[in-house]
């Protein structure tokens, strides 16, 4: 098990109901973390219901669901970005 900081932005933050939390996880990839959280509580399952609308950053770099979690400190979930 390892300890991760997990952050949520925009409508993912609203659905999960937290902007940031510390998570104990045995997941090896981001996808594994998503599955673990979704199994844990309904609000996560709802937030992650359509993964095509979810983007991921690992330690503040864009990544994808297959990204490994070994040595990672922070994972963030958010919708496609709308800057500018």
């Amino acid at each position: 098990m390892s300890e991760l900081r997990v952050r949520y932005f925009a409508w993912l933050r609203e659905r999960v109901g937290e902007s940031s939390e510390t998570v104990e996880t045995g997941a090896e990839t981001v996808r594994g973390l998503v599955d673990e959280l979704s199994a844990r509580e309904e609000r996560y399952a709802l937030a992650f219901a359509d993964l095509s609308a979810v983007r991921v950053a690992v330690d503040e770099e864009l990544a994808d669901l297959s990204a490994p979690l070994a040595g990672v400190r922070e994972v963030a979930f958010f919708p496609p970005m709308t800057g500018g």
Partner: protein
Amino acid sequence: MAVRVQREDFDCGAEIAALTAGRTEIGAVVTFSGLVRDSGGLASLELEHYPGMTEKALAAIEAEAVSRWELQASLVIHRYGRLAPGDRIMMVATASRHRQAAFEAAEFLMDYLKSRAPFWKKESGPDGGRWVDATESDEAALARWK
């Protein structure tokens, strides 16, 4: 070369003056500013971002522009927080010897920061709040720079 992420407003004219002061080799400055557009009934726009990653992502996009074009100077300012219709959201400025590099680099910066910088917009109006969706054309705009 500079990136600023801030809550406060900024002055485009003063920024351009500071960027080019004493830099007589600069022959061209291109700027773009984005404003809060009211398409009907918009009360406010909330800009959320990912502190830490935002600065890194913008700096990486700017570094990519500098590697592709011969720029004498560049600047990206992006605001966050609650904005009203007509408010400035962001600006990019690029300066080069001749205009083509400045024009192209400014377009490149805009195309990338639209869909690769971690900002999200929520519009509030009479019917409540609504997150602004990314558009297919934003993503398609990146293809021409591959």
